[in-house]
């Protein structure tokens, strides 16, 4: 009894101690390399710090200022400055994904890839007492990295290879290059014999250090001055004193000991010893080598911006002009090396204005149009130039170009014609243009990726379709304030107002979520404009990619463009018109309004045997209701539909034919498609003038409008929107991506399954290995360049492989792209931009929930204190900045339909906008990945998480 009591007591005490220890554990923060240097510097520590300082890791941030880095960013679809992009900084800096509070005052991002990038944030293990005990240090957060950890950044990246043409990194050699072993007889502690740097020269100011100068002198607006210095030999001047060569020179000059402690060496190899001053400020570091102030003088008196902007004042405060003498003080034949001043100055030149970097031609890429109510002007949204081009209808000429937000997509006029509203898809905004002055008078924040937009007939409410948020913003046009958000279906795309103005019909590009391995079910969302609410949701079975919509003037029906994708059977089956048939939907509005009969939808094809109509994108109906024009962006044509014939055909048919035959009948289109008209490249929007005589198409990929005479069904003119005439490789690739010429019967293009480079939300059965075998979720192409290998099974090592032979064998079924075409296509795919993350704007702090979620993402222990094996932690396979280790893993998601159990690790950037999830798209939401499909903790240890912890984890994942 007494013994058991004692045991119980011991357990209680131990548990208490453990609990207390747990309670005391602090969140580690980054301290910066210079803090590490306090111990890891000097001969007794093998000059570890100096070895780093002289390495490429130390200039990793600075190199992002190079033109090559900009090119890589452009190639990768990264719209920001590389030095501001979390993606670039993820590998070129330390703690890029940490919040401000997770970085100590001693930490500077500009120091590049520092000790803590590999060894983990150091605040809790930097104490010498802890560092002496490896176990304790590791418990406090010290990481001893392995090669796979390095591979997170050092795997081959297509974008970098394309620019640098460098071979694959030789990891063995690289590790040798950065080796920084601790000597067997190491001695921790501050260096001894470090001389006093304070020379006490009154009136000369104090040294402040380069990082204070860098606060202003960095970035493109200042010619990347700091980065230029950081990449120069001046920045390594202190570090080189640790090299054997430096020791040899010192010996030759009769100097004893460590050159880094010898004032004779430090005089020219550091700033502080260069000229004696009043001293240094707290954050000044000797390790910066020859910094700005070595030449320009101690900066404490002149560094304030107000002084620096006044050159005489700056001079008076100690800013020195540079001349030959300045350099010769140290460079006059040092160590028997000749010095060419003119060449040297060129080498370190750092003008405020960087030389202009040649930019790729800026195309226009017109997408959609709106005609002013007076019929005189056509407004055209131009995605690539971020402008709206104004065309004089009578003169058929471009007369103005108005800068709006990024990726303007659709445009509409207020009924009085005084304003035009433009959706900016990349910015999540709407630009309000004052038509008279052609100025943007307001920019409204709306939901994710606004696409179509339209007012009600009074102009009181503006409806904006938030394509990536599955919602519709309703804006009061008087106050320009958001009134509410209505729920759409998935990816609302375009909208059209009924002739009586009582309803607005909205097409949704993606199917609703359906049960695993069942056909698509799409929706036309019906808005009651009198109350600005969703009144009805019309179901369109077996259809997806519903995009264009136009009301018939009778008000009896609307026409919509649609695809009928047979994603449940292998793509080799030609049944019912093959994989992606293209057609029209007739959405009936049977009187009386509101009765259950509303919303019958007929579907007919626009494909004909041997001649498909790929990517029907937009539709317009003549004012007399006789004809409809439909654009095919994949075949550069317009189909002329005789609406009267179409309706007669439907009315003469049986219900069975309408419901089960016409939707797959390739023979029917000849009964109502009376002509095809050629347009420019990739026609998107189509618009018919109120007189019913003229139509216009916006040809996205040749920066023009085609003018069509409706009576003769002929293209009678081309309006040049003024884009560059040269066709770059990327533009060529973009055309190939949007063209169906590469597929059997020209049925679909890359854009058909990846609309605008994103997803169609479907799970495909691709290979001819049996119906339903190995279904795979379609993945986004946004930002995929450096995420090789491709394909869920990870068997395609490059985009060239993915888009070349594989595409021909399983998708397009005709001759593959030529090598030139393939190269251009891959170039384009890589540049498809990834929108900024909506859940964490650049530089924003994490919310409380996101912060807690980050802790879960990075956790190493379960809630009950069990260590999570490294391979089962989120951050092991999903490591920043791409959040993929680019390897295959078995996470327990193999189904009876799958051949493989190991699947490629997807990247997590903007993961919130590409549902469904997992290799087979079986998880509709991020939650389901863990609540339903991770029963055995194979996809990370998550089953011990409480519901709120899982919620937090998901909130964090959405920020990546």
């Amino acid at each position, binding site marked *: 009894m007494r013994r058991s009591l004692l045991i119980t007591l011991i357990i209680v005490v131990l548990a208490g101690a453990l609990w207390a220890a747990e309670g005391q554990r602090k969140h580690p923060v980054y301290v910066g390399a210079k803090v590490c240097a306090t111990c890891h510097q000097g001969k007794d520590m093998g000059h570890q710090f100096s070895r780093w300082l002289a390495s490429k890791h130390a200039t990793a941030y600075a190199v992002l200022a190079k033109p090559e880095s900009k090119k890589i960013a452009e190639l990768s679809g990264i719209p920001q400055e590389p030095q501001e992009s979390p993606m670039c900084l993820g590998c070129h800096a330390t703690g890029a994904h940490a919040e401000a509070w997770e970085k100590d005052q001693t930490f500077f991002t500009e120091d590049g890839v520092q000790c803590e990038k590999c060894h983990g944030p150091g605040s809790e293990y930097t104490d010498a007492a802890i560092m002496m005990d490896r176990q304790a240090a590791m418990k406090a957060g010290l990481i001893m990295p392995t090669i796979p950890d390095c591979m997170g950044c050092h795997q081959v990246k297509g974008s970098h290879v394309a620019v640098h043409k460098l071979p694959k990194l030789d990891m063995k050699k690289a590790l040798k290059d950065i080796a920084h072993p601790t000597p067997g007889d190491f001695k921790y502690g501050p260096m001894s014999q470090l001389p006093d740097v304070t020379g006490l020269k009154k009136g000369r100011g104090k040294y402040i250090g380069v990082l204070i100068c860098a606060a202003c002198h960095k970035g493109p607006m200042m010619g990347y001055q700091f980065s230029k210095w950081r990449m120069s030999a001046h920045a390594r001047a202190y570090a080189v004193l640790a090299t054997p060569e430096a020791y040899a020179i010192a010996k030759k000059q009769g100097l004893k000991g460590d050159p880094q402690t010898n004032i004779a060496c430090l005089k020219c190899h550091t700033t502080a010893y260069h000229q004696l001053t009043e001293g240094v400020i707290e954050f000044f570091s000797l390790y910066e080598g020859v910094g700005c102030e070595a030449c320009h003088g101690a900066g404490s008196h002149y560094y304030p911006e107000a002084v620096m902007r006044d050159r005489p004042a700056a001079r008076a405060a100690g800013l020195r002009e540079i001349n030959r003498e300045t350099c010769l003080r140290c460079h006059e034949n040092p160590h028997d090396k000749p010095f060419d001043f003119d060449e040297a100055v060129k080498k370190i030149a750092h003008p405020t204005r960087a030389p202009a970097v040649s930019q790729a031609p800026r195309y226009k890429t017109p997408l959609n149009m709106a005609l002013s109510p007076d019929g005189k002007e056509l407004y055209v949204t131009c995605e690539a130039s971020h402008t709206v081009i104004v065309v004089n209808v009578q003169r058929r000429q471009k007369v103005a170009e108005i800068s709006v937000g990024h990726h303007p997509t659709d445009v509409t006029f207020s009924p009085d014609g005084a304003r035009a509203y433009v959706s900016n898809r990349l910015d999540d905004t709407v630009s309000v243009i004052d038509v008279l002055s052609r100025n943007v008078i307001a920019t409204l924040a709306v939901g994710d990726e606004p696409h179509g937009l339209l007012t009600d007939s009074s102009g009181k409410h503006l409806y904006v379709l938030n394509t990536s948020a599955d*919602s519709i913003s309703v804006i009061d046009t008087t106050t320009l304030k958001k009134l509410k*958000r*209505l*729920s759409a279906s998935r990816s609302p795309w375009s909208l059209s107002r009924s002739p009586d103005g009582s309803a607005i019909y909205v097409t949704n590009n993606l199917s609703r979520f359906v049960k695993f391995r069942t056909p698509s079910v799409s929706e036309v969302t019906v808005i009651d404009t009198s109350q600005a609410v*969703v009144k009805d949701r019309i179901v369109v079975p077996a259809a997806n990619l519903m995009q264009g919509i136009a009301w018939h003037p009778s008000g009896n029906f609307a026409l919509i463009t649609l695809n009928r994708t047979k994603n449940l059977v292998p793509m080799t089956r030609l049944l019912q018109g093959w994989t992606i048939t293209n057609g029209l939907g007739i959405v009936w509005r049977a009187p009386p309004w509101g009765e259950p009969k509303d919303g019958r939808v007929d579907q007919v094809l626009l494909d004909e045997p041997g001649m498909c109509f790929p990517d029907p994108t937009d539709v317009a109906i003549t004012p007399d209701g006789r004809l409809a024009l439909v654009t095919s962006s994949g075949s550069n044509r317009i189909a002329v539909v005789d609406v009267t014939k179409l309706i007669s055909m439907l009315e003469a048919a049986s219900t069975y034919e309408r419901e089960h035959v016409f939707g797959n009948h390739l023979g029917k289109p000849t009964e109502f498609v009376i002509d095809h008209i050629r347009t420019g490249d990739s026609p998107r929007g189509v618009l018919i003038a109120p007189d019913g005589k003229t139509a216009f198409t916006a040809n996205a990929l040749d920066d023009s409008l085609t003018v069509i005479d409706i009576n003769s069904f002929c293209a009678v003119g081309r309006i040049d929107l003024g884009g560059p005439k040269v066709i770059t490789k990327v533009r060529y690739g973009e055309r190939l991506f949007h063209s169906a010429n590469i597929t059997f019967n020209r049925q679909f293009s890359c854009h058909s399954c990846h609309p605008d480079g994103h997803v169609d939300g479907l799970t495909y059965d691709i290979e001819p290995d049996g119906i339903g075998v190995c279904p795979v979720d379609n993945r986004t192409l946004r930002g995929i360049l450096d995420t090789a290998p491709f394909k869920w099974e990870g068997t395609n090592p490059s985009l060239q492989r993915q888009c070349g032979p594989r595409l021909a064998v399983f998708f397009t079924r005709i001759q593959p792209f030529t090598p030139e075409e393939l190269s251009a296509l891959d170039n384009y795919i890589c540049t498809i931009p990834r929108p900024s993350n909506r859940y964490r704007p650049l530089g924003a702090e994490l919310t409380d929930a996101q912060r807690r979620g980050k802790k879960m993402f990075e956790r190493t222990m379960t809630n009950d204190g069990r260590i999570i094996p490294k391979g089962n932690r989120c951050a092991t396979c999903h490591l920043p900045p791409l959040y993929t280790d680019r390897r295959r893993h078995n996470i327990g998601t193999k189904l009876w339909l799958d051949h493989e159990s190991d699947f490629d690790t997807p990247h997590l950037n903007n993961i919130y906008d590409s549902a469904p999830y997992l290799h087979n798209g079986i998880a509709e939401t991020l*939650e389901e990945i863990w609540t*339903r499909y991770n029963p055995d903790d194979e996809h990370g240890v998550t089953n011990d998480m409480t*519901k*709120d912890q899982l*919620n937090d984890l998901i909130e964090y994942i959405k920020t990546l």
Partner: protein
Amino acid sequence: MKYLIIAVKILMVCSLLVARRSALGSRATSHGPREKLPYVYTEWKHFTVNTGLPNDHVFAIKADGPKVWVGTENGLACIDKRTGKIKSWKEKDGLPWRVVSALDVNPKTGELWVGLFGGGLARFSGGRFDHWHQLNSGLVNDVVYGVAIENDNVWAATTAGASRYNTVTGEWTIYTEKNSPMEEIWNYGVSYDAGKVYLGIWGSGVLEFDVATETWKDYLDPDGEMEIDLYRDDGIVHVISTGTSYIDGILWVSTYFGMNRYDGRHWRGFYEHETGLPSDFGNAVKGRSANEAWFATDKGLGVLADFPSDTWVTYTMDPNTHRGKAVVSQNQKVLEAIDMPKSIPHNYALWVEIDGNDVWVGTSKGVGWGIGPGYYKGLKDRAVYKAKIVKIKAEN
């Protein structure tokens, strides 16, 4: 004797006719003495499975213009007030779960939010049900007792805490004992008005969430968990709270051991033995104003018709005759008693909904619709019907 009974019956019928006319406020005649009296609902319609409800066990009602949504034990129904027609949805019609325990309508979008007892949360919009539950979303638990719309957020009171879903950002926030003063996590009800969310919690009283500051305030029974109130009006009467309703700056609370009114400074408790409450066992409450509240109890409907004068109207149904009764009392004195052909459909009342001048009552035997075209607030000088008041009170 036989003639006496006939005479009494004739007298009663006549009296009822007079009472009916006098009780309807504006329609009241000058028969009998006049007094300041509250409005009494004497015209009732019932909806049950016989008239089209999917189930008689009614847990929630929400009026939205001409539509009245009804949540039952086996389906969702919508009563068209104009036609009296009922449309219903069961699981086969797309309703994600059979038991509908809570309802609220987003006034901006018109979307109906549906709490499902064991099935999570659903949104019904344009004929489409969207479904959120423990497995596909951040909802804390699938047993949902209450739903309330607060700006762009939807609150769900569940058996394992409260969830707040931001319909714009998609973020789910869970409130439990970890991040709020929720001693117990069994949330029975939730309501929202004027920047305040109130949770009625089984065993944790009432929690107030200030939307602007995102801070919590708890209201617990100062007497602890005792089922009697040691010091009256010192706080909430009991921590087993079932419903809350906040209107005109007044919080109304129902508990299993009495009801409450709180004006931000003073609490006031209401009990069966000293008011017109038919029972202390409160299932739900709905405030109509600072001075009027409707309490659904296990023995009928208690209406505090005029708080300043402590005037109550008690609606019950005679289980034998199925006739209805309304008793007006003030400071424990019965002023008026009205016998009606119909009142509430059953005395086990689970929900009350105020709909303009009308009221809707959910019971374990269907829905009662109290039609009140002449409804007036507070008290009004009108004729009194004096029946066998004492006897009626005794029967109650």
